[in-house]
């Protein structure tokens, strides 16, 4: 097997592992201390504070997009190549 194929397999493995890790992390239940009171005062129930940002995950998400993008492009190129005549 050529060096290129070793590299392709390594990249693929990294992409799958990293992608799986992030996909798992993004669906993990939030167990922070921001609990809601949801009590009733007057006529309105009071919820807890909304979580309105996601930018802290940007670096990880960009890394996943880059790695999986490279894997896809490299894989497609591998699949599309014509067999070399010996």
């Amino acid at each position, binding site marked *: 097997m050529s060096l290129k194929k070793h590299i392709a397999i390594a990249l693929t493995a990294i992409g799958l592992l990293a992608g799986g890790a992030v996909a798992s992390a993004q669906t993990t239940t939030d167990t922070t201390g921001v609990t809601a009171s949801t009590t009733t005062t007057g006529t309105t129930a009071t919820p807890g*504070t909304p979580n309105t940002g996601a930018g802290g995950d940007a670096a990880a998400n960009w890394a996943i997009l880059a790695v999986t993008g490279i894997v896809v492009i490299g894989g497609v190129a591998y699949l599309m190549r014509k067999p070399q005549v010996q």
Partner: protein
Amino acid sequence: MTFDSKKFIALAIVLCAAGIFSYTFLHAAVYTANPDDLDSGIAPAGMPAALLSDAATSSAEAGVPVRLRIPKIGVDANVVDVGLGKTGNMAVPYTFTDVGWYRYGPKPGQVGSAVIDGHVDNGLGTPAVFINLTRLEPGDDLYIDTKAGETLHFKVEETAAYAVADVPLQKVFNRNDMPRLTLITCEGTWEPGQKMYDERRVVYAVLQSS
């Protein structure tokens, strides 16, 4: 390993990678919110049945907000109604371009605090609808367009940043002295363990005229 089986494996890997790419892109760039923070359909505990019924049907009523406009910071956003997330927090909009009105509270223009939240950024770090909320100052104008075609004019009365645990929830949600509009978004430093920012920016506004 035959040539065909190698290609089969390569195809499977490409499809897996493409799936992960698509999921990450959609989750981070389009559907910004953590699933636990989206509207769960759970009603607030202790809320009178009549009010729950009213809230459940409120999205069909004429007085509900459909658009929020803040000329100073270039916001002209679609308003969606939101309830509670799975953890009991105010839910957030699905996308980073919409804002969410808390449907279990007053409608804008009614006496009480109508609360609208919006994202500050998305999972790729792209600025979201409330990225510039910190620039608002007392006296700035906010406008709400309702489903009935009415436009409500609010003026900023106060802005404040709080640590998450110190957000005065009663002040944000339950001031019943006059028609109020409260905007809320994230601010501060990202807490990786909690997957959220450690502060909240709150803008308090009062109705001027309709």
